[in-house]
């Protein structure tokens, strides 16, 4: 009786009764970090482009230029020190002695030359490769521990761009090893000079590392093993930290209250990004009649926003009062105190003044505008901020037609013709970088990608001034003069009210105090790729 | 004719109702009859008169939850089946009383072989340790004249003809050697030639096993051939019972009379078959008096007022009609 037996079999398939042992916390010697993304999870610095790669590539590869651990920005790395030549056309890097790759080969100037050229090679899709190609003329090995890079023209921030404080293009890769095993072999068994050795990578799930056994200049890891887990759902990451399955989990500001309710510690990384809103293509003829073309209206819109409420309620106090556009407390080439005062006064919440300005501009009973609300990868809280801003504008009588769009759909609109964006406002972001100038070039210079002041064919007065100010900064070798020129540029943008900072975002992490000891993050760097080697065990340094 | 044989099944004033959305359908409304060993009683009537429901009530297989037996007694060899619990009743079905259904196409389970379905019936029956179950199954098939039983055992229902399937159903029905077999229009779905073979088969089985048979049909040709006695049902009640010959020769109840008149005769010229005007009354609101009143040629006001009692006419021949009282022996 075949069919009868078949059905008995199907019914008999009882669920595998696994042992329902109590959830075992991860063992003491392994540091487990739960992340919302592992990027492309490709163990090769030239193959991943977006920020997340700093999570999983930093442990293995050192960067030519390192960090200033205390207050963010750049510091000594593989190169102990570096020097800009008198004529400003070349930089000389002096490497630290005694550095070794995980297979024992010494780190030499040849490796640095090879690494930089590999980043610039055609098959590299690393996002900074193009900038490097534009900047570097040629690279010369002076001796085993000295390398000189000749640049096309004077590039004051060139050294900084080889630091993870800015991008990943400074990773130092083993020349001999890669030339013997080839690119594929290198990606399967990656070798670097960092404090952690590669163990295994399970695609879409996790990456495992093992601490090096010798002391390391970045810091000798307290844990034997490091595991980075990919857990896309935030509430799941929270649950893992509460049950001890993970020591640290990346969370958004909205989950801080939930994390504290669960007895977890909160670590906030200051100055990781700046949430801004900006107006597009106001200089274009088709936007001529728009009320947004009146600077008083734009200033009113900024005064209408109660930034303190956004910090306290939308961000759950996990945010700070913003500095000017793309500027942070650790920014170089600008007089910080001056701009701190400016932002306190200019970005204040003053609805009365805002109403007055609107009336002066002839829009007492408000007007209609379009506002594109979106969130860049890694900062989903930009959408609630956008909604809050729209809410404040609505209270001011402005009719806001909000269009919430997924980043993949919004980003292309900002390139080329910008047809859909002309005459509208949108949320945007500036990443936590030590020098503001390159970010200003992107948005305000006529040749820049966003060119909000004007484009090469149609460049009104403001656009011309911005171009001149930018040229002054880039070509300036003298620090004092460059700072003055930078201040001039920041003032120009601030007074235009076309790109306005809302709040300075922080990277927030939930930590299980029983799994990892007290540690301090690097200001401006949301990723912990360069922090894991300094995280103590819970018994070594308890949480305050 | 087994006139003197013991009574196997006696039904007294059986009532079985259907509780539906349109009200209570009194499908079986006070039926009484007796069935003797080796005898075949025909239960005849138009469709919808409650004959199938009567059959189902005997084996207590009324459609749940609508159908319910509300009154009366069903005495099988003296035991009242209506008081039995479901497990006790299960023991009766197949072993002491069995039934053949109308449509062979749907009577057999399509996913099991014929052999499985017979073996299952045999396993329920009395343990006949002598030969193995399979051998007894093949004998059962042979007894219902199924050729090459060994192969047939492995066949599936859809591979057999209607007639063949009805034989298998027959084999299953008698596998437990029941004392009473209820055949609910077993041949209606078969074509004529197969019909005659099947009826002869039933007769043969009855002769061999002495089982009593209740034959439910609307076909008088079959009644004449198969039944020793006939009970005519109308609107939930039996209006006339008697020996087949007596009913065919001298029906006394106007409804039986009309039925007999509408059966085509071989002899004599046949111009236009008489038919009975009107419709049987709806079973969910039955009139008070005689239910055939509206269609009866001899109706008077007494018929409408009061339901006539069953009165004896001749030997084992009785009918429920006031006319009988008025002229005792019309013959």
């Amino acid at each position, binding site marked *: 009786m075949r069919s009868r037996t078949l059905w008995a079999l199907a019914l008999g398939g009882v669920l595998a009764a696994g042992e329902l042992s109590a959830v075992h916390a991860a063992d003491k010697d392994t540091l487990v970090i739960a992340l919302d993304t592992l990027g492309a999870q490709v163990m090769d610095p030239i193959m991943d482009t977006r920020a997340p790669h700093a999570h999983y590539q930093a442990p293995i590869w050192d960067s030519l230029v390192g960090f200033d651990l205390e207050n963010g920005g750049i510091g000594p790395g593989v190169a102990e020190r570096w020097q800009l030549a008198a004529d400003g056309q070349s930089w000389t890097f002096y490497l630290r002695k005694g550095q070794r790759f995980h297979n024992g080969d010494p780190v030499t100037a040849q490796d640095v030359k090879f690494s930089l050229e590999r980043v610039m090679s055609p098959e590299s899709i690393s996002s900074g490769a193009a900038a490097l190609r534009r900047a570097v003329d040629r690279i010369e090995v002076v001796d085993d521990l000295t390398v000189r890079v000749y640049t096309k023209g004077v590039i004051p921030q060139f050294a900084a761009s080889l630091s993870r404080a800015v991008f990943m293009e400074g990773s130092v890769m083993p020349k001999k090893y890669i030339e013997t095993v080839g690119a594929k072999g290198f990606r399967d068994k990656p070798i670097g000079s960092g404090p952690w050795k590669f163990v295994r990578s399970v695609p879409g799930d996790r990456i495992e590392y093992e601490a090096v056994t010798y002391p390391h200049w970045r810091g000798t890891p307290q844990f034997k093993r490091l595991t980075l887990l990919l857990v896309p759902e935030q509430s799941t990451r929270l649950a893992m930290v509460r049950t001890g399955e993970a020591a640290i989990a990346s969370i958004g500001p909205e989950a801080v209250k939930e994390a504290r*309710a669960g007895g977890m510690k909160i670590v906030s990384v200051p100055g990781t990004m700046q949430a801004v809103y900006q107006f597009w293509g106001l200089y274009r003829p088709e936007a001529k009649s728009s009320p947004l073309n009146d600077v008083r209206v734009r200033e009113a819109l900024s005064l209408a926003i109660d930034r303190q409420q956004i910090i306290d*309620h939308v961000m759950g106090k996990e945010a700070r009062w913003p500095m000017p556009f793309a500027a942070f407390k650790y920014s170089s080439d600008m007089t910080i105190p001056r701009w701190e005062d400016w932002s306190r006064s200019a970005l204040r919440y003053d609805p009365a003044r805002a109403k007055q300005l609107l009336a002066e501009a002839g829009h007492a009973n408000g007007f209609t505008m379009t506002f594109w609300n979106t969130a860049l990868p890694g900062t989903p809280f930009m959408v609630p901020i956008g909604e*809050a801003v729209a809410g404040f504008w609505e209270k001011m009588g402005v009719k806001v037609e909000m269009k*919430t769009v*997924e980043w993949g759909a919004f980003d292309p609109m900002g390139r080329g013709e910008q047809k859909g964006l002309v005459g509208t406002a949108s949320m945007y972001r500036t990443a936590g970088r030590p020098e503001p100038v390159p970010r200003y070039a992107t948005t305000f210079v006529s040749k820049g990608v966003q060119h909000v002041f004007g484009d090469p064919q149609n460049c009104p007065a403001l656009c011309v001034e911005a171009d001149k100010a930018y040229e002054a900064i880039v070509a300036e070798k003298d620090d004092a003069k460059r700072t003055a020129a930078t201040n001039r540029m920041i003032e120009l943008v601030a007074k235009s009210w076309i790109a306005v900072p809302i709040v300075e975002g922080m990277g927030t992490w939930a930590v299980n105090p029983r799994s990892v000891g007290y540690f301090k993050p690097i200001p401006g760097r949301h990723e912990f790729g360069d922090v894991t080697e300094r995280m103590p065990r819970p018994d070594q340094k308890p949480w305050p | 004719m087994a006139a003197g044989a013991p009574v196997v099944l006696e039904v007294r004033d059986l009532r079985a109702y259907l*509780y539906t*959305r349109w009200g209570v359908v009194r499908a079986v409304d006070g039926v009484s009859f007796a069935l003797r060993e080796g005898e075949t009683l025909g239960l005849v009537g138009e469709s919808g008169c409650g004959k199938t429901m009567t059959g189902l009530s005997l084996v207590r297989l009324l*459609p749940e939850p609508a159908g319910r037996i509300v009154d009366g007694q069903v005495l099988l060899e003296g035991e009242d089946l209506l008081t039995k619990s479901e497990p006790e009743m299960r023991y009766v079905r197949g072993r002491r009383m069995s039934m053949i259904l109308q449509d062979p196409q749907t009577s057999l389970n399509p996913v099991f072989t014929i052999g499985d379905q017979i073996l299952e019936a045999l396993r329920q029956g009395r343990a006949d340790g002598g030969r193995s179950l399979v051998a007894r199954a093949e004998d059962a098939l042979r007894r219902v004249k199924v050729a090459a039983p060994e192969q047939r055992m492995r066949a599936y229902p859809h591979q057999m003809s209607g007639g063949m399937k009805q034989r298998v159903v027959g084999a299953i029905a008698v596998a437990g050697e029941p004392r009473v077999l209820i055949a609910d229009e077993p041949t209606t779905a078969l074509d004529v030639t197969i019909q005659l073979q099947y009826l002869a088969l039933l007769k043969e089985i009855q002769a061999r096993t002495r089982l009593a048979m209740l034959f439910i049909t609307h076909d008088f040709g079959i009644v004449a051939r198969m039944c020793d006695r006939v009970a005519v049902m109308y609107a939930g009640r039996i209006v006339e019972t008697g020996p087949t010959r007596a009913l065919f020769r001298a029906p006394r109840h106007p409804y039986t009379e009309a039925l007999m008149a509408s059966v085509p005769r071989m002899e004599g010229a046949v111009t236009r078959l008489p038919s009975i005007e009107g419709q049987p009354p709806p079973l969910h609101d039955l009139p008070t008096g005689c239910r055939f009143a509206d269609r009866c040629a001899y109706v008077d006001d007494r018929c409408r007022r009061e339901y006539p009692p069953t009165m004896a006419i001749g030997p084992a021949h009785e009918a429920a009609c006031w006319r009988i009282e008025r002229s005792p022996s019309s013959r």
Partner: protein
Amino acid sequence: MARVEDRIDVELAAATAADDAAHPRPRGDFARLPWGSFVIIAVLILVAVLAPLIAPHSPTEQSLPDKLLPPAWEAGGSTRHLLGTDVLGRDVLSRLLYGARVSLIVAAVALLAGGGIGLAVGIVSGYLGGRTDSFLMRTVDATLTFPTILIALLLAVSLGPGLKTIAIAITVLIWARFARVVRGEVLAVKTRDFVALARVHGCSHLRIMAVHIVPNVLNTFMVLLTLHIGFVIIIEASLSFLGAGIPPPTPSWGQMVSDGRSHIASAWWLSVVPGAAIMLVVLAFNLFGDWLRDWLDPRLRQV
């Protein structure tokens, strides 16, 4: 001997029909009217229509200081916000009322469009049979294999999220399910005598389909409509979870459940309230569907 292919299709269609339109037999019991579901559906429609009048606050009005207030009956709750407030201080009750409107519109548009196409394809495919039938059925198979969420994501991403996109995405997926079931019913109805009779009288195929086939298939179709209301609302919720749902600030139940998910411990009402609303509505429509199926029961065909 019917070709195996048709046998299976008939069986599958009948089975699916059995799933959605099966009815217990015999029909003795009296099918109680599902008053419960009538009330809930009536309330839902009333709420959706009168939302602007009865909602205590505007669904998008923010008041950041009183964010994440618990419902009135909990400690710290205020009667101004009966069901508490969300992350931006918006009134949960008002968003629930307005959300009913959005969910109903999406469900109505998707079901009528999707159902309509499905009904047409099902009838044509079932009635004509042969090559058109197998072609249409293979298209149905293709649509069923295409992942639900993926189509919605691709559409949301290319056409831009919004009520219209969600409705289109769900329509593209719903029609296949309707087509398959309707086809099964048509196959069953097609073999009935009155269809042959109509053809004998010289009716055109179109007339037969419209006059004879449609009425008999309508009750299964109606039942399918009610049973799929739940399916549509859940799809909308899942899309919101994946970030391709109805964009803020328009309130929708699916978006509310999705947004509230990271506050399970500290602000349970954010996802529990809309979740309960969805469950109540789906329960109501399912009971209504069951009752409708019994009431429109083909039992009338059998008498």
